[in-house]
């Protein structure tokens, strides 16, 4: 097993960092992290899932999404099409059969990637991503600019694309959805754990991460590894 290393990937619009953990060979998985503030709240948790997957012998990649996380691209130059193109390029660069893991809004980013399967934790559509941002900014002190939502400057095309994203597009291939047990919406499995993406402060839940990693490992095996 190999430890955490910082790799990178190229896509048509630039160059982004990509964390890698575990082996370089199959089974391989790529994580589409949560978006905006939820990404900060779930950063440690996402890494805990990745580390646990590595102990299951799964090689994991976590690419930076353009205009998100540590990306140098300003958020107001990001578009949904670019997110999807970048994630698809990162997946292609890993090569071979790669399984997708989407956390929350990550589920709208992985649609163009060639993935062997898709595992989703409490996925939300672009429309929900946008309404969460709007609600957060309505209850926060905003500095007036309509394009600034909860501290994020968003380009009009991104706002429009999120607004129009109301259902998960059919991507083909197997999909598994997991939600926390307090969430009544349909899922393949409900797991006891905290919705850390709602926490006002970043937090982690290692037992929850371990349960999810075990679920993902079993799922990837059932999808042919």
């Amino acid at each position, binding site marked *: 097993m190999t430890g955490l290393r910082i790799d990178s990937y190229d896509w048509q619009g630039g160059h982004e960092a990509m964390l890698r953990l575990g082996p370089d060979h199959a089974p391989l998985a790529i994580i589409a992290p949560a978006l905006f503030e939820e990404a900060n709240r779930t950063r440690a948790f996402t890494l805990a899932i990745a580390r646990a997957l590595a102990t299951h012998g799964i090689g994991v990649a976590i690419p930076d999404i353009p205009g998100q996380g540590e990306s140098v691209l300003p958020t107001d130059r990001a578009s949904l099409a670019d997110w999807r193109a970048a994630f698809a390029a990162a997946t292609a660069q890993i090569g071979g059969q790669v399984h997708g893991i989407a956390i929350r809004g990550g589920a709208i980013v992985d649609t163009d990637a060639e993935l062997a399967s898709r595992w989703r934790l409490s996925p939300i559509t672009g429309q929900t991503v946008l309404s*969460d941002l709007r609600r*957060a900014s309505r*209850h926060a002190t905003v500095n007036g600019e309509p394009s600034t939502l909860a501290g994020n400057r968003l380009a009009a095309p991104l706002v429009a694309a999120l607004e129009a994203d109301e259902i998960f597009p059919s991507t083909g291939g197997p999909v598994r959805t997991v939600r926390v047990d*307090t969430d*009544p919406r349909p899922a393949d499995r409900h797991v006891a754990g905290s919705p850390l993406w709602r926490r*006002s*402060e970043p937090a982690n839940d290692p037992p929850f991460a371990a349960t999810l990693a075990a679920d993902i490992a079993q799922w990837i095996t059932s999808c042919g590894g």
Partner: protein
Amino acid sequence: MIFEGTHEVERAVRAVLGDVLGLSPERTAEFTDVTPLFGALPELDSMAVAGVLTEVEDRLGIVIEDDEVDGETLSTFGALVAFAARKTAV
């Protein structure tokens, strides 16, 4: 005001506050109708208010319009439960 299912609403609201604000079950178990929330819990800032409202919507299957929410809605635990119970009764 007793609504059918108010007990479930109360339990859900208690759990949401624990989950969103990162409070222990022991701490949220002490909440009564008159426990002050907004302005009294440092964890409950404006960002957290958005998280609480969205999570209450998700768990109870209700829709909360932001203009229905004012200072009173989150003033006490009892006020928030009553607000959510009214929405579930609609």
